[in-house]
């Protein structure tokens, strides 16, 4: 000890062998064995609460009362019958697109072109409507909707097929491919707005005609105040769950997601499976576009998809790609959207708060996954180590 104080190097002592102390790192990460349901819930709830707290902090910074803001969001989205109906109406495309994206994400196929696929479905559906309007509505309601649905499926599926085809053929980057298709769809709609045959009669303003005024047949019936798309979405959740969990197709998707090479080795036609799944994924997004046209907007604009394609990624990932969990999650995200519109008008908080909050929540959910698989081991204090050593020697 005295040597260290004076600063001279420690001479080799013949009696006491030099003990080398290796400092443990402050925090170590080790794998957990099993995780109970309770632990899982605890971790997720903690993450969620932390996310809300961070959101509250942001609101405080811009000088708003976060408690009021959160309360207003809840009452704004579920306070009245109309606002609840509106919230559920927002949840419908989120759920459908979330399921669609889960199909692709399960294969680690990063389809972020949900936006474009929704628009592609909506565009082709609108083509049918416009053709029907010009034909003088000489078509029954059921055939009209069947045609619209087929068109929507075709449009979405095409936008799913293209990236899948090139990805499986040459390994073309699907993330960017699907994303570029979004912008192409948007510009295509901008072009449609300029066309005389798509505009309301006697105007030159670049805007597409309101389908409801021109052709009342396209309006979907409502059940409990929300267009029947919600029944389809719930049925889809059940069907998708069964498809992914109980069928051969679902199994193939899971294997490809885990390891493409394993799937190849097992003799699966991986190329066809990927293309098939993306056809389904795109077609479902296209259907979401159809429901937007026929159930909600009754017209086509470049914001028909309105960010649903991106938000659906959040829905899918927050639900761990499980279609059932997506039902409450999509309603929750819809609540954030509707609620943020409410606080925009009542508290002058920008509606983009919804995107910000969803982003923060997802960040925390992504971050807390570490604590499910691993556990942190902090450095034991020196006295504790000595105690442990004594125990061992005794």
């Amino acid at each position, binding site marked *: 000890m005295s040597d260290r104080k004076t600063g001279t190097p420690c001479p080799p002592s013949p009696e006491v062998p030099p003990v080398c102390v290796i400092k443990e790192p402050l925090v170590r990460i080790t794998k957990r064995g099993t995780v109970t349901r309770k632990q899982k819930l605890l971790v997720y709830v903690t993450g969620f609460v932390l996310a809300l707290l961070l959101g509250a902090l942001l609101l405080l910074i811009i000088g708003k009362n976060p408690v009021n803001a959160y309360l207003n969001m809840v009452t704004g989205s579920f306070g009245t019958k109309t606002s609840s109906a509106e919230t559920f109406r927002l949840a419908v495309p989120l759920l459908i697109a979330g399921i669609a994206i889960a199909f692709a994400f399960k294969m680690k196929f990063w389809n972020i072109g949900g936006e474009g696929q929704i628009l592609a479905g909506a565009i082709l559906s609108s083509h049918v409507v416009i053709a029907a309007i010009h034909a003088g509505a000489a078509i029954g309601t059921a055939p009209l909707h069947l045609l619209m649905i087929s068109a929507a499926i075709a449009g979405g599926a095409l936008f799913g097929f293209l990236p899948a085809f090139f990805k499986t053929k040459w390994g073309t980057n699907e993330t960017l491919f699907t994303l570029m298709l979004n912008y192409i769809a948007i510009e295509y709609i901008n*072009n449609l707005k300029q066309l005389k045959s798509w505009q309301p009669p006697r105007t030159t303003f670049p805007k597409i005609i309101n389908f409801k005024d021109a052709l009342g047949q396209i309006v979907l019936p409502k059940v409990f105040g929300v267009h029947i798309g919600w029944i389809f979405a719930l049925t889809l959740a059940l069907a998708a769950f069964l498809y992914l969990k109980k069928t051969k197709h679902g199994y193939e998707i899971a294997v490809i997601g885990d390891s493409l090479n394993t799937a190849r080795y097992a003799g699966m036609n991986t190329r066809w499976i990927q293309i098939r799944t993306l056809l389904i994924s795109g077609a479902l997004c296209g259907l979401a576009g159809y429901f937007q046209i026929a159930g909600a907007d009754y017209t086509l604009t470049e914001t028909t998809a309105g960010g649903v394609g991106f938000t659906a990624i959040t829905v899918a990932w927050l639900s761990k790609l499980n279609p059932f969990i997506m039902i409450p999650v999509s309603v929750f995200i819809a609540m954030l959207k509707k609620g943020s519109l409410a606080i925009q008008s009542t508290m002058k908080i*920008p509606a*983009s*708060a919804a995107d910000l909050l969803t*982003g923060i929540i*997802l*960040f925390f959910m992504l*971050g807390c996954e570490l604590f499910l698989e691993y556990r942190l081991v902090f450095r034991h204090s020196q006295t504790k180590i000595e105690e442990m050593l004594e125990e061992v020697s005794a």
Partner: protein
Amino acid sequence: MNTLVSLLNAAVLAGTPLLLATCGEILTEKSGSLNLGVEGMMYMGAIAGLAGAWYVEQWFGHGGLLAAVFAFVFAFLCGALGGLIYAILTVSLRANQNVTGLTLAIFGTGFGKFFGEVLGHKAGGYVTVNAETKAMYGRINFGKLSEIPVLGTLFFKYNWLVYFALAVAILLGWFLNRTRKGLSLRAVGESPGTADSAGISVTRYRYLAALGGGGLCGLGGMYMSMVDQKGIWVHDCISGYGWLAIALVIFATWNPLRAIYCSIIFGGLSVMYMYVPISGLPLPIYRMFPYIATIIVLIITSMMQIKEHAQPAGTGLNYFREER
């Protein structure tokens, strides 16, 4: 000839934010992190830059150089904040790189739009910087040099950020290929396990690369809000440029020097409709060009398998020392 020269001039101006963001993403990807959140980080930089300049004007009563300096610093820091979030999640908390990047894109877009509106409320309507600050992003006065026919327009009619972006690209190329630290960074990206056993801290390099890369993306965003939109907050000011930048990284085969001409080509494609009208072609269809070109480039590079030779082998994978 005149059209061509002015098109090239506009292409360089439009390609500069792409070049900054592409350099940032190259730096990040060379360390083995595939950060898809460029669009988000650009939004963060765009609003931070504008907010920085605006606040300086409010505090000191006049804008100009000080406002431009603050805008620059704020944009870099805010973009780096995006990179930091990404690094914490993927390097320390081991989250999936793809999903984290996508979330960053969503978050950053929301961040930009949210604070853009907040700032708008504060400014009473909409945010705009004063003429003094705007002048900082105008053309540099080269005197007689810019009057040289053709060459003057091609080389001496830009704002200072254009030359800054060029310098960044050249410096980054030199750093990655000619310095010891650059070599270590590339080693971390190619094979983190090997780098780790050679005593290079994978964590530190990935963090620093994500921070620096995010900062550069933030500067790209600042360019779009301060130069392209002339210091006025526009809700869709980035409009997909972040995603184009990620595609440009592939197009430029992870080489910052090649990114220079690639960004000029893409800048040209995105402004071509204003300079070379094609009769009979509707404008919206014309505006699809850069996106269609991106798809074609992606397909061609994948067909020629350029990607497999150029992409750092460790990109997209998190590194856990214990799981070797």
